[in-house]
């Protein structure tokens, strides 16, 4: 579904990604783990078209997308929930959701999807007229995921969805992520620092170190791998 080959991204003189190769197949949950500053968010921004690769190519459904503007990439079916949730604080919950469907032109489908995300997260329905900035961290994460789903993506990119949330909320959000993947066949690319959690829901994983993919394997093998356990699982 998504293939990255030799992708290099740099900010000025600082090189953030050095030739990343990566593949995500349709219907999978794939995770990318790595330390702070390894280049995980940059990699997602490169897929979404907000960080331009200076070399390499990104292929989505057989077509190269690395030179497309961000709105064309969303239209092709890639949505991202960025790190820190990035809710529009001065817009209501409902307006935030409606903006998620900005690129769509099927009002009936948008209404159906609004009902669908309200069924996934009923709390959002009861808070739909509240300003986004008044929600708690967990509710904001639910809103951010729902907003991304409103574009009806075939590939959902999630950047650190567990960051700063209580364990019970994290469990709830991860079970919803699995549900979306199973019910809608939405492919999920999950970037996490909480490697233990991420590898439990994912089928495969990549390890990113200093802008390079240093390891890739099935999630189970990575969970058992001595180096990964020491570096990322804290055991």
């Amino acid at each position, binding site marked *: 579904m998504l293939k990255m080959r030799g992708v290099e991204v740099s900010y000025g003189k600082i090189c953030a990604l050095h030739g990343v190769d990566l593949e995500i197949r349709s219907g999978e949950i794939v995770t990318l783990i790595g330390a702070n500053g390894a280049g995980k968010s940059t990699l997602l921004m490169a897929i979404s078209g907000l960080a331009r690769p200076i070399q390499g190519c990104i292929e989505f459904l057989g077509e190269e997308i690395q030179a497309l503007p961000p*709105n064309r990439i969303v239209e092709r079916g890639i*949505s991202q929930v*960025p790190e820190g949730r*990035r809710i529009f604080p*001065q*817009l209501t919950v409902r307006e935030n959701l409606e*903006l*998620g469907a*900005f690129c769509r032109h099927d009002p009936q489908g948008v209404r159906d999807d609004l009902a669908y995300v309200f069924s996934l997260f009923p709390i959002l329905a009861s808070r739909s007229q509240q300003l986004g900035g008044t929600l708690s961290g967990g509710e904001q994460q639910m809103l951010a995921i729902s907003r991304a789903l409103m574009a009806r993506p075939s590939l959902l990119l999630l950047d650190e969805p567990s960051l700063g949330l209580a364990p019970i909320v994290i469990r709830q959000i991860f079970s919803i992520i699995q549900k979306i993947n199973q019910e809608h066949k939405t492919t999920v690319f999950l970037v996490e620092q909480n490697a233990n959690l991420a590898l439990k829901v994912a089928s495969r994983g990549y390890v990113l170190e200093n802008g390079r993919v240093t390891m890739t394997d099935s999630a189970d093998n990575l969970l058992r791998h001595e180096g990964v356990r020491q570096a990322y699982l804290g055991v």
Partner: protein
Amino acid sequence: MEYFLELFFSGLTRGSIYALIALGYTMVYGIIGLINFAHGEIYMIGAFTALICATVLTIWGLPPLAVLGLSAFAAIIWSAAYGLTVERIAYRPLRHAPRLSPLISAIGMSIFLQNYVLLAQTADFVSFPALIPDFAWLEPYRSIIGSSDLVILLTTAVVMLLLTILIKGTKIGRAMRATAQDREMALLLGIDVNLVISVTFVIGSALAAIGGVLIASHIGQINFAIGFLAGIKAFTAAVLGGIGSVPGAVLGSLLLGWTESFATGYISSDYEDVFAFALLVLILIFRPSGILGRHHNQKV
């Protein structure tokens, strides 16, 4: 009391014109964080377009209200085209440059447009036809409010209402508010930010053009430099209300209009600008972000 009411309405009229211009400053600032110093010139170009159009249409023998309407329409289209073009050639290429660069580019654009109109037209004041007819039924109240004041107030009220509907109730309005709050996130949602910025410039320029036509008809003369002082005053009003805030721009404009009007009426017209800018200094001392300005909370 009658004198007070007269000053009240003349301040309200002034404030309405400031508001029409100030909205362009505040909306552009809200979305791209730029003080568009060429905005006053867009207003001046609107007034000149209306003058040329009104002259031709009057020769054709159309009734004054039709002339006013058509000239205003032409001014809106022409000014919007200028606003759009200025953004394309002077600001968009500098989108990722340091903040000072587009600011200097804006000042350059302002000087360029003033001199272009100076050369294309004339350096002298030219008289602008009184397009707003005197309403007979307003005669008993003539000492308090004139018919052009009334037309300015009503037009401004309708325009503000339409603007509010656009910003609050439409898809592009939502996209504008989203872009103002978090441009990168707006991009991630597939919002065409360049389009949103263009629309903002078009709306701001159209509002300025309406202000230009109304004030030119009210005062009766224009020249190439009217955009400068009007622009500075409207900018002051926008800062007073809290730059970036749409209701703030309207509130700041009305306050400024009343301050000038009452200072002129009760003290002396020599002190009009002194009071206007003293008000700005006072507000900025006690509320640096303006009356309705957003506080810049640092996100954790």
